[in-house]
């Protein structure tokens, strides 16, 4: 310890670069991104790499009677043409429950559902090969609306029935709460579907390493689940699959479940060559998940003093033909449909329904996005009926430490809704903003 003395004599100013928590340091990946050096899934290639392409279903609901891949398989430059029968393991995946087929087996359930896969030396050849695959379909009646889907005689999207999950939230006595209400507002709301449009479409590349490990580089939100799902479909031990994240060009929930990881793995395993598959924008929008369209009926009651007394609601979420995260997105809606307000009495149901519409799944906001569209308009309508300022009405009813959420969970000191509303109140004062200026002509 020759330099102990020196160590303890070091002056404060010697230490460079200290930035306390709360500092806006430059992102550590900013340099690679502004110089174009960051590597996204489509930027990675390997010697001898093939290009993957998917054949998508043109029907929302149909039986697959026959697939003829012979012409595609004979094309020069084509190394593999795969259908459901070529899958070594289980033909199934799914982030929450495994109810989605990797490649359509007996039936297709949405327009865009992958039916066959091609690996070729060139993207043009791959596209041509996909076009040459002949599929014989027998179209079926479909379900295109969740309210139609729950009817007894509705066509079955999934064999076990069209209701994926029914969540019930029951707190207090909602009928007594409405009896106590002086004002009740009741409405139906519909919300529409939205595409995430991450600027980078989904993509990945897979190959078999020298040691036999299947290696996948992809644009993903969770590589550990990707590798589990790949292992099941490829019939491999989980520790023989390596999943690596590339730089990701936006996710917003879209890349939470596997996207192309299983597809490139199947092709790499079949050809023993590296295979890359990057969706073009149209394929991305057709094959991947979206924001759930919802239909909600809700009634909300309050006293003439402006205190909320009760809420009753029911949500129907259109989750498409496979669960993805639709089971939890819609579950979360039942809990959050009342918003950040205290309801002594609360009854809410949310029902996630299988349809033959595009798949819905996780999307930034995760059901609360749709819930807020409902509860915030209810709050404004109640405030208007009661003649109370909308912001004051929210402050009067918002959750605070000691008050309970729809689940009965009591809020702790971290409950911040009042602080955000107070901040907006200040903001309105600072900028002389006010509500209801009655059709002010500008």
């Amino acid at each position, binding site marked *: 310890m020759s330099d102990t003395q020196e160590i303890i004599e070091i002056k404060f100013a010697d230490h460079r670069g200290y930035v306390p928590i709360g500092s806006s340091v430059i992102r550590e990946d900013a*340099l690679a991104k502004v110089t174009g050096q960051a590597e996204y899934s489509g930027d990675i290639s390997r010697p001898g790499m093939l290009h993957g392409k998917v054949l998508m279903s043109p029907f929302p609901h149909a039986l697959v009677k026959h697939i003829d891949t012979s012409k595609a398989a004979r094309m020069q430059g084509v190394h593999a043409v795969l259908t459901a029968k070529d899958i070594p393991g289980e033909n199934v995946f799914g982030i929450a429950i495994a109810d989605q087929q990797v490649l359509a087996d007996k039936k297709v359930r949405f327009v865009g559902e992958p039916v066959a896969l091609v690996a070729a030396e060139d993207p043009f050849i791959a596209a041509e090969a996909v076009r040459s695959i002949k599929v014989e379909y027998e179209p079926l009646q479909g379900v295109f609306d969740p309210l139609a889907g729950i009817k007894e005689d509705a066509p079955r999207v999934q064999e076990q029935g069209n209701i994926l999950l029914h969540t019930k939230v029951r707190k207090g006595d909602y009928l007594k709460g409405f009896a106590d209400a002086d004002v009740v507002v009741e409405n139906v709301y519909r919300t529409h579907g939205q595409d995430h449009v991450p*600027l980078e479409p989904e993509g990945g590349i897979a190959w078999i390493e020298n040691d036999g490990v299947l290696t996948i580089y992809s644009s993903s939100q969770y590589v550990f689940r990707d590798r589990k799902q790949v292992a099941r479909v490829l019939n491999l031990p989980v520790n023989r699959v390596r999943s690596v994240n590339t730089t990701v*060009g936006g996710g917003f929930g879209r890349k939470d479940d596997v996207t192309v990881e299983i597809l490139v793995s199947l092709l790499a395993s079949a050809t023993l060559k590296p295979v890359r598959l990057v969706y073009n*924008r149209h394929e991305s929008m057709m094959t991947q998940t979206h924001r759930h369209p919802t239909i909600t009926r809700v009634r909300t009651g309050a006293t003439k003093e402006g205190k909320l007394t009760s809420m009753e609601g029911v949500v129907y979420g259109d989750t498409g033909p496979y669960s993805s995260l639709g089971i939890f997105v819609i579950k979360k809606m039942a809990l959050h449909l009342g918003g950040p307000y205290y309801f002594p009495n609360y009854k809410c149901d949310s029902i996630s329904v299988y349809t033959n519409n595009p798949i819905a799944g996780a999307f930034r906001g995760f059901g609360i996005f749709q819930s807020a569209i409902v509860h915030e308009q209810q709050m404004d309508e109640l405030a208007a009926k009661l003649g109370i300022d909308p912001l004051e009405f929210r402050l009067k009813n918002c959750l605070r430490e000691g008050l309970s959420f729809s689940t009965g969970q009591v809020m702790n000191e971290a409950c911040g809704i009042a602080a955000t509303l107070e901040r907006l109140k200040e903001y309105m004062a600072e900028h002389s903003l006010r509500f209801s200026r009655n059709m002010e002509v500008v």
Partner: protein
Amino acid sequence: MINNQKDVLMDLVINNKHISIRAGGGRCLLDFLREDLSLMGTKEGCGEGECGSCTVLLDGKAVLSCMTPMERAIGREVTTIEGVGRPGNLHPLQQAMMEEGGVQCGFCTPGMIMSGVELLNRKSNPNRDEIVEGISGNLCRCTGYRKIITAIERAAEKMS
């Protein structure tokens, strides 16, 4: 690249370097840059001229390389993100994008910077409306654009 089109002689200047190579023709400039020259900084976000991620400069003018036939670049000068500035020698706009938080996922960033650079070359002191117009063909899904606009303003200040 196997292609039905004949080979063409691609004789042009890329990022201040003269190159002359034979390449399969009939493709877009974006594919030529990425597949034949391994200039991977230019991105494909839609392939139909809507998102701006593939923006490069052709003789100093911003073009969508996914919509530009590669043959159109022959005898001309192409600048990609790789030619704008490298670590240690950044363009003021690259530096400002880092400092102002104009970068999140980064996928739109190269195209965004190319549009910004072209604007700054055209106009030394663009106002906010001109900046918005200059990047209105470049989609970004992460940032909400405001920090990108500020970055272009800062870069303009530094450059003038």
